[in-house]
Structures are given as structure tokens and as C-alpha cells.
């Protein structure tokens, strides 16, 4: 379980849901199902737009305040990219089941009251977007997310992409950023102490991971060198290729 592993995803893993996805990256594995638009309950019904219901379920223990907090953050960001006005009085239900998350081997965790980590946000966000795409829910744009931590190492500040729980424990600040496919900032959540300059740094790093423009037609050698110089996985390319494979597999009969 190293942070350098490339993200993996499978679409349509649950046969009975409208759309589903399983995503694993940096030790986190999340399965999501999307049902919608379906009939909303009276109390959730909005007259002019669809209600987005996000449910986060931890692998162990019952969900608590932290899960509700994550749900509310995800709910408000996803409502920005889903075309909610197209489905008045209906419900789009997104269930995110955490399967696996990396553990800090150096502390014993209390698990009966589940306490989800802040750094799981990108995995939740990415799985939700993949499941929404799989359910063919109309969206304004897709989104990509990443987590960045600022660590104090050998007297110098260092930015760590996709931090491990052990890194998070020692980190000065942890940031989760998400961008839409139009390069707009969709979500910025931070924890810990940091200056504006550090945040700008984090923003640039996250932007480099989430909004990398597709590789131009270059010479083969130059492209290889280019790939090595840029750090972190290319999330947008990953999203695109995952969907591309799925569509190609579905349209195989043609």
C-alpha cells in the first residue's frame, strides 16, 4: 500500500442500481451507487430542482458527525455540477460505501465510533462522479479531486500529494481541492495552520494534478521525458480513459 499506486476504477459494478462505480486510489477503496432521478419524499421535495441525497457509510461502525459533515460538503459540491433544474420534485440518491482505508500502524484506533479521515474526500468525490457518469445523470461538467498535505521536513516545507494517515498526523495542514473539467475550482477544504502563500502553492500543485491538459502530439521521446517531470497522477486523463474503456466495452456489439 503505497501512495504512488495509480488510481483504479470499475463502472457498473452493482447490477441493481442505476449507476455504480468502484474506485481505489492511495489505499482508499470506495463503492458508490447512484439511483435517480427517482420519486422524492415529501419532506425532501424541492419545487424547482432535484434533491441530491449523499449518504456516506463507513466500513466499520456507525456514521457520526464527521460523516454528516463529509456528506454536506459533497452534497453542496455535487449539486453545483449536476443539472438539478432538469428534474424538479425528484431525488438523485448517491450512496458511498467506504470499503477500505489505509490505517496508521503506529496508533491503535477506536473503531466502534467510526471516524472518517479528511483525506478520504477525493476518493469519495471521484467515486461519486464516476457513479453519476455511469448512471447517465446529466451534468454541467465532470470533476476531479485531490488531497495535498504540507509537511515540515528537515527544516523545509514540503507538499505531499495523497498523504498517508501517518503523514496526515504529522502534517501542518491538509487540503482537499476539486476542480471541474472547465478548470474551475469546485471545492477547497483545509485543515490546520497555513499561510496564503502556502495555500497558493497547494492550489498550483492540485491544479497540476486535476487539470492537466491532454498531452499534445509531441515526439515520442519528449513525451516520455515530460511524463517523468510532472508529479502525481493525471486525474482528468484517468477519468476520461475510464469512461472511454467503459463506452468501448458497452458498444462492442456495434
Amino acid at each position, binding site marked *: 500500500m503505497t501512495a504512488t499506486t495509480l488510481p483504479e476504477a470499475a463502472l457498473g459494478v*452493482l447490477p441493481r442500481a442505476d449507476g455504480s462505480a468502484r474506485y481505489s486510489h492511495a489505499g482508499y477503496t470506495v*463503492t458508490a*451507487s447512484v439511483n435517480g432521478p427517482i*420519486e422524492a419524499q415529501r419532506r425532501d421535495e424541492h419545487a424547482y430542482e432535484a434533491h441530491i441525497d449523499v449518504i456516506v457509510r463507513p466500513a*466499520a461502525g*456507525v456514521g457520526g458527525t464527521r460523516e454528516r459533515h463529509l456528506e454536506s460538503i459533497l452534497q453542496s459540491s455535487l449539486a453545483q455540477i449536476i443539472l438539478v433544474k432538469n428534474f424538479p420534485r425528484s431525488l438523485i440518491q448517491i450512496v458511498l460505501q467506504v470499503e*477500505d482505508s489505509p*490505517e496508521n500502524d503506529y496508533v491503535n484506533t477506536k473503531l466502534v465510533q467510526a471516524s472518517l479521515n479528511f483525506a478520504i474526500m477525493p476518493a469519495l468525490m471521484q467515486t461519486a462522479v464516476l457513479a453519476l457518469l455511469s448512471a447517465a445523470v446529466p451534468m454541467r461538467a465532470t470533476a476531479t479531486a485531490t488531497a495535498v498535505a504540507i509537511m515540515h521536513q528537515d527544516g523545509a516545507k514540503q507538499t505531499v500529494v495523497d498523504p498517508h494517515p501517518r503523514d496526515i498526523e504529522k502534517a501542518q495542514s491538509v487540503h482537499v481541492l476539486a476542480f471541474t473539467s472547465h478548470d474551475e475550482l469546485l471545492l477547497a477544504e483545509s485543515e490546520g495552520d497555513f499561510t496564503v502563500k502556502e495555500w497558493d502553492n497547494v492550489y498550483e500543485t492540485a491544479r497540476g494534478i486535476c487539470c492537466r491538459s491532454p498531452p499534445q502530439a509531441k515526439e515520442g521521446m519528449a513525451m516520455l521525458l515530460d511524463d517523468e517531470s510532472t508529479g502525481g497522477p493525471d486525474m482528468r486523463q484517468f477519468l476520461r480513459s475510464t469512461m472511454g474503456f467503459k463506452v468501448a466495452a458497452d458498444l462492442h456489439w456495434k
Partner: protein
Amino acid sequence: MPREAEPSLNEKQFVIQALQENLRLDGRELDQYRPLELSFGDQYGLADVKLGKTRVLAKATAEVTVPYTDRPLDGIFTIATELGPMTSPAFEVNRPTETEVLLSRLLEKTVRRSGALDTESLCLVAGQKCWSVRVDVHVLSHDGNLIDASCLAVVAALRHFRKPDTSMEAGVLTVYTPAEREPVPLSWLHSPFCVTWSFFGEEGEIAVLDATWIEEQVRVGSCTVSLNKHGEICQIAKLGGTPVEAVALLQCVSVSLTKVKEFSDLLDRKLAEDLKRRDKGGFMAELRAENDR
């Protein structure tokens, strides 16, 4: 939330008539299970069971707590079942349905009451400290026969699980982190498995194993037998439905035993494979802190 659509009259009659001609919609034999897949996660105590389109995830965890005052020498062992909206939008959060209550009761009876996990071994300091072992069962997709799949997932998760090692020195309890000492397995006594029979026909004369969702909706009764590979029966539950002949039930139990032996073999094989996968460099034997029994 929308209610789940019932199968139409035509669908129901089609399934029943096919069963009367010894045929099933997916071409299986009457006493044949769907392909069963079992896999473990990166962490200890995570089991993923796929039975056809039914998928169940079980996660075992442990923490140190205070034992119940009426049972000072026993640890705590709970099984939490949840059928969330992921299973079907008809299930609501925090509102257990009848299916969920029946499922958790059956699991409780099979795994907990049969003494599969030795709860006395979970006690650390009598009346003060004990392990609380909790298994969370998440049903990801429901295509019939939840009981058998969940039971297998729970047993697999518990057998795969390792709890942190502890030591007592001069009345001080130390719980070692996984980095300090390799975690130790639970003291496991036997592995019970559930086998669910569904009965069809006017008098319940057709007995079918591993019913799918549509078959479950048209059956006239069902019976769950829990037993281990030695043929020791932990419980038999036949909750209502059409009465079934005792001789037919005996026949069912003897077939169940062969199925349970298959489950048991599969679980043993998968656990051995997983152990081999984790044992990189062959240091596991030296790292182990437990004594051989």
C-alpha cells in the same frame, strides 16, 4: 421512497411452472449454488462475498471497552447488519425493515449463540477491560439468498481478522500497535454456515437451494439450516410458510452438510492463499506473537 416492484402474475407463474418441470431461470440444478466468489481486503478482517449478483461485504473490528456488569468474564461480540439505499432505494437509512431484522437475528443465532467465537478469550481484566469485537455487514446488492452470503462473509471476516496483541505486566495492560507487534487472530472454535432452502408448489414439495430474488418472492416457505462441517447443527429456522414434510426436511439437512463442507473448504483455501500473499519473504512465522495451541 419508491416501493420495490413486485413480479407480475405472468412472471410468477412462469417461474413456478418452470420449477415444477425441474427447470430454473438461470439453468441451474435445484440444489446448485450460483458461482461463489470470496476475496479479502488489504486490511485484516475485510471479506467480500459474491454469490451470483448478490454481493455482501463484512468488516470486523475490535476495540478495548468495559464488559457488561452481568457478564464480567466475557468479551463483547456484536454483529451489525444494514440494508441501506445502496441495496435498493426502497430501504431507508436508520429504518430497519423486516428482512434486515430477520437477517441479523439469524446471523446472531448462527454465529454468536453457537459459540463460534470464544467470548471468554476476549476478556482482558475481569470486570474492567475486555475486547469488543464488532462485525459490520454491508449488503451492496441483493439478488436473493442474503442469509447464506452474509453468514459466509461474517465467518470469513472473523477468521481473517487479527486483533492487536496485548500483555499484562504488574496489573498494567499494554495494547500493542500493529507496528510494534504483529496482531493475533481471534480464538475461533468452529465455523458455522447457513444453507437456505426455498419451498415451492402447493405442499412445498419442491425444495430449491440458493433462490434468486424473483424466486424468493414466489416461494411458499423457506427454511434455514446452520451447521458446521462436522455436521453439528447450530439452528434450524422455519419461520411460517407452508408446512413441509419431515422426511423432506431431513433430506434437505443431509444435502446441506455437503454444501457446508464445500463452503468450509473454499474458506480454508482462500484464507491459506491470503496468508501466502501476505507472507512476503517468509517472516510471518517469526513475527507471530501467539503460541501454537
